[in-house]
Every structure is written in C-alpha cells, then in structure tokens.
C-alpha cells in the first residue's frame, strides 16, 4: 500500500516538474523522489499541473542542477523552430522592466545592457515614441559574416549566439552590426554567481575582452519558456514565439503571428539594409499611453 502510494507520487511529481518549480524558492528542479523515504524532514508545498496543491517530504526531493548545453551543443539550433520577437511600440511606455529582468538574469551591470529603450522620433511631424531594442537575430547577420573565428554564429532556429570562449575580441562584429546590439567586456566583469559551466546559451559567466549581446535566452527556450524580458513587461509590449508554429505570446495572450504582422502593418527596422531581422515592430499608433519624456539622467 505504502509502495503504491510512493509510486503514484513519483509519477505525479515527474509530470509536474515545470509547474512545481515555482513553488520551490531558487532555481533547483525536482528530479524525482526516493521511494521508501518516509516521515523525515520538512514538508514542501508543490503545485501540480492540474492546479492542486500537494505536500511532499523534502527528503523525497533531490536537487537537480540544470546544466545548460555545452558550447559545441549550443551551435545546433533547437530542431524545427524559428524564433521571432514582435515589439508592439504602441504599448511601450519606457517602464524598463525588460532591461531589469535581462540584467538580473544575465547578471549584467548597468554599463553594458543587452536591451536599450530608445527615444525615437521618425520625423518632426510625428510624435516621439519608445523603442525597446535588443539583438535582431538577423537571418543575414553582418556580425556572423565578419567574425574571423566563428565565435558568433547563426543557428537553425534563427538565433545568433556568441561563444565567448572562442571570441578573440577583435570587435569587428561590433563595427559591422548596424544596430549597435553588441557590448564588450572592456574591463574585468564583476564576479557572477553561477553553479554551472559556461554556455553560449546562458552567456554567463562573462569574460574579459569578449563580446556579448542579447541571446533570446535559449536556456529558457529549451524549457519551452519565453525569454525573461517578455514576462517582465507590464504592458505586454513584447511578444515572442515561433515562426514555424505561427504563434507568439506576450505572456498573457497568444496570437497568430502572421495575422498580427499583417493586421498591425508590422515592419522590421531598416529593412533596406538587407539584414533580414527576426524582430518585428508594430507601429506606435493607437497608443496605450501618451508619450512622456524620460526622467532626467536616465540611461538608455
């Protein structure tokens, strides 16, 4: 009877890996539980996939360190995917939560952010607007073309990543990128807390004398989750998804990508450069918020 219960519990725990992780503080995942362990230790509350709360013995849980893929493995894309981002400019009000989430996740210091929110004004007659800008993960990336050692590369799932163990720091990619997407570790990066080895999919830890940029959080994508900036946006301005599946989500709603792009007259920044970006912008019309200038001294 006891065995059967344990068996059942194991099955259920396996199925609730993703749902359960938010209940445990920190980043550890549940791998399974040990049969036979009984009343020892504290009880932990977990949320199951069907939304019910259960209590488990802590001793039944083992910590699984989630190792990101190796630099070699990170050169291959996630099969059958083509990731895209859509930024709805009518919803951005320069809340800068995406920058904060990104800085936190990638352990960046404010002097080298991956995301910038720029104050744009297309012409004198039109109103200014805020434009969140990250790496465009171009399909014809000028940075990848010029890299002498293949440290930055294009994957089958549309991502452009950097292997900072191979980068020689020539900065040709930075000169070649028309979108200023890249940052350089000019000095020693501040010590970063991490329990796993370096992977181009996490961009952590940073290394002196190498280039970094927005990576679309492939470690999240591998877990079928969206990048941190998407969920951090309080206004749902950022959509992320898969071109092949033709769907994008901003965390609260999931929409058909092709319909969204068509109906909202999406454009890509400087299409004429021929870089084929994978980030689309929806024009800042019918805005959710009126434009408000940034407070004094705010970095972009």
């Amino acid at each position, binding site marked *: 009877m006891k065995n059967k219960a344990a068996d059942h519990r194991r099955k259920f725990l396996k199925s609730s890996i993703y749902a359960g992780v938010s209940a445990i503080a920190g980043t550890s995942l549940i791998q399974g539980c040990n049969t036979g362990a009984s009343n020892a230790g504290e009880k932990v509350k977990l949320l199951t996939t069907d939304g019910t709360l259960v209590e488990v013995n802590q001793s039944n849980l083992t910590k699984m360190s989630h190792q990101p893929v190796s630099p070699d493995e990170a050169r291959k894309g996630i099969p059958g995917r083509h990731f895209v981002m859509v930024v709805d400019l009518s919803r951005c009000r320069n809340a800068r939560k995406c920058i904060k989430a990104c800085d936190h996740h990638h352990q960046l210091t404010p002097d080298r952010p991956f995301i910038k929110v720029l104050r*744009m004004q297309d012409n004198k007659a039109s109103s200014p607007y805020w434009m969140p800008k990250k790496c465009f993960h171009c399909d014809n990336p000028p940075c990848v*073309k010029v890299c*002498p050692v293949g440290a930055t590369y294009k994957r089958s799932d549309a991502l452009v990543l950097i292997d900072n163990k191979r980068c020689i720091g020539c900065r*040709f990619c*930075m000169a070649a990128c028309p979108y200023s997407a890249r940052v*350089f570790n000019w000095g020693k990066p501040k010590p970063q807390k991490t329990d796993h080895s370096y992977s181009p999919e996490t961009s952590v830890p940073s290394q002196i004398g190498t280039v970094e940029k927005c990576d679309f959080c492939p470690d999240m994508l591998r877990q079928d989750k969206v990048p941190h900036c998407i969920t951090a946006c309080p206004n749902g301005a950022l959509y992320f998804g898969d071109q092949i599946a033709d769907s994008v989500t901003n965390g609260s709603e999931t929409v058909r990508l092709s319909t969204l792009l068509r109906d909202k007259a999406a454009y890509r920044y400087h299409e004429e450069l021929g870089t084929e970006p994978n980030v689309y912008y929806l024009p800042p019309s019918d805005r959710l918020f009126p434009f408000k200038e940034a407070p004094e001294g705010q970095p972009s």
Partner: protein
Amino acid sequence: MDLDQKSTRTLNYFVPQMVTISKSGILQLSILILFIMGGFYALYIQIVDGHIVTGMRDNVVWGLYIANFIFFIGISYAGALISGILHLLRVEWRHPIIRIAEIITIISTIIGPAYILLCMGRLDRLHHLVLYGRIQSPIIWDVLAISTYLIGSIIFLYLATIRDLAALRDYPFKSKWRHTLYKFFAVNFNGNSKQNRYLERGLNIMSAIIIPLAVLVHSVLAWIFGMTLRPGWHSTIFAPYFVVAAVFSGTGVLIIALWVFRKYYHLESYITKIHFNYLGIILMILGALYAYFTFSEYLTSWYGSETWEMEVLYKLFDPHEYWWWFFFAAIVGVVVPILVILIPQFRSINSITAVSVIAVFALWVKRYLIIIPTLETPLLPLQDMRPEYIHYTPTAIEWLLTFAGVAMFCFLFFLFSKFLPIVSVVKGEEGTNYAELRKTVMQRIIKRT
C-alpha cells in the same frame, strides 16, 4: 667576389659606420629604447586591466591602434610599390634609395600588424585564427594578405641584398660573428654570370609579384571598412582610395628617411637633389590623385545627402568637432605639397622633405578621421549618458603605444643599418645592359624613320 672601384669605395665608406656607434648615437638609441619601454609598460597595464584603460568603448570600438595599423601598412608601400616599379622600369637613379625603401617596407609591415594585436581583446587566443579561421571574414583575408606580403618583401629585399652580402663576406671584418653571419646569408654567391642571371630573373619576378601583392594588401585593408554597412565606410572606391593614400604616405616617408640618412651618415654624394626632385614629383602626382579620390568620395555622399552619411559629413565639417583636423588632412596636407613641388623655385631638398612631413602627418590624421567619426555615428540614436561612450578620446596608454611604435620603427631601422649598408654597394649588371639595349632600339627606330 670581385668588386669594381666604385663599389669598393662605397663599401669602405659604410663599413666603419656599421661597426661603430657614436656617443650621440648611443644617446639617440637610449631615447628610442626609453619610448619602447614605455610602450611595454602600457601594454602590461592593458593586459592586466583590459581595454578599459583605452579610450575605446561600445560605440567607438576601434581607435588609435587601427589608425596606426593602416598608417604603417600604408608607409610600407615605399618599398614595395616604388622599388618594385622602379626596378621593373629600370630607372637608373633608384639604386641609392632602393635599399632604404625596402627596409621601410619590412619594418612597417612588422609594426603595422602589431597594432592589430594590441587592439585584440584576447591576445591569448591568437591561435584561434588558425584553429577556427573563416575565409569569409575580411580579417582572415588581411592575415593571409599581410603575411604573404611580408614574406614577399623579405624575399625581395634579400635578393636585392645578396650581392652586398657577398661583398661583406669578403670584407676583412675584425669580429668573427659578422663573418659567419654574412657567409651564411651570402649563400656562396660569387658573382659569376650564371648566378647573376638567376639573381636578376628572381628580382624581376619578385618585383612583378610584389606590386599586385601590395595593391591587394591595402585593398583588403580598405575592405575591412568597406564591407560594413556604415556611413563613410561603405564605399566602392575605398580600396583604390586606400591604395593611393598608402603610396602617397609611403613616398613621403621615403623622402623623410632619405633626408635623415643623408644627414646622419653624410651621404650627400650618394643621395642627391635628383632623388628628392624625382620622388617629389611622384609625391605631387600621388597627392593630386589622392585629392581627386577625397573630393569624389565626399562629393558623392554630400550630393546624395542620405541622412546617415550627412551626419558623418557634418561632423567632419563642424568646427567644434573635426573640421580643423579634416582641413589639415584633406586640404593642407595635399595642397601645400603639390604647390611647393609644382613651383621649381620652391623645390629644394629641405622644402620637399618639409612638405613630405606635412603629407605624412596629414595622412595619419586622415586615417583617424576615417575611423573615429564613422564609429561615433551609429544608425540608432546615441542616447548614452556617459560622455566617453559618445566621444572617443585616446588615453595615455594608447599614445604611449603609438609613440613606442614610431620609436620601434626608428630602432629597427638603426639596427638594420648596423648590419647592412643603407645604400646598395654592388650594382647589378642589368643597368648597363638595359641602357645598351635602349640605345640599339632607339637607333633602329631612328634608322626606320
């Protein structure tokens, strides 16, 4: 090897200068070494602290180092193109200056790429260029082109020096190591007709190879910039523009070097006003060509008036930004040399050297103006709060390493002059043969008409 009277005289004139060093020479040498040490100190700091010690930041990712790199590769043209072309055209007056020109080539082809290494964030991963090199990258084109060019230039200089090495081998030096050294490099050359014929053929082939190679090196260098989608860089004329600018500055440096060696080693009887006049006229023609390219380049982008291009142009023409530098680099540095050389009354050894100094400085500034204003003009608006991210200012570290490069250039030149006579001693036979050939051809033409 049997030497004629003139060669023996030249040899006897140069050897004492090669084996001794004057007191002022020691002083000058220690100043050079001081500057080089300063450079090593700066390099040490840069390696320990990273490139944060330079003025480069995320927008202006390249600075003085790359400007110096283009500059040194540019002056390397002195030897390659000038001595190559003069050799192929059998120009008689080239003999006293050709050695100096070739040494300039080799030294600057060594120092130039050193600046690329200084610019690299991870010098410890240099071998990645071999392990993971991608032929699609213009940097790899550059690595291949420059290394080929350097090897070609060394072979060219070596072939042009073998006769002198043989003469030095036979000279009764006191020190034994010199004897061994020259014996090794003279490879049993004794000046018989068969050896001379092969040597002459080798020189002809090498001078024919070195000219396209030199053009290629600077074209590839220009393509590093031309291939990127940036205003002021993305231009089809960049390769020929760079080549012309390079020969212009190379000729300028050659004139300066001739002046210095003429004074330093008292070579008045070898390097005469004719050399300065002829090289001055070459400099003038190249200056006009360079001015034509500059005009064409900026007129095109101004007339088209694309916003992005105009932003760079406005920076160059803004008195608060780069106007005075641009004025010096594109106008003073070209007009003054052309005018001074054009008017025969102004033409003298000193005036030609002075305008060469102006031209060389102007060309260095031009390289700076090619790199920095463009990098300060990204496509997306620069909304950074940090002034050092908007404007590039070179730091003391970068200046120290720049001066160290110039000092290294002079130091290596000095070193060369202690091993080889700075003016070629033994003249090849091809000169007289060619003159005779020309005579017979001319006679035939006259007979026919």
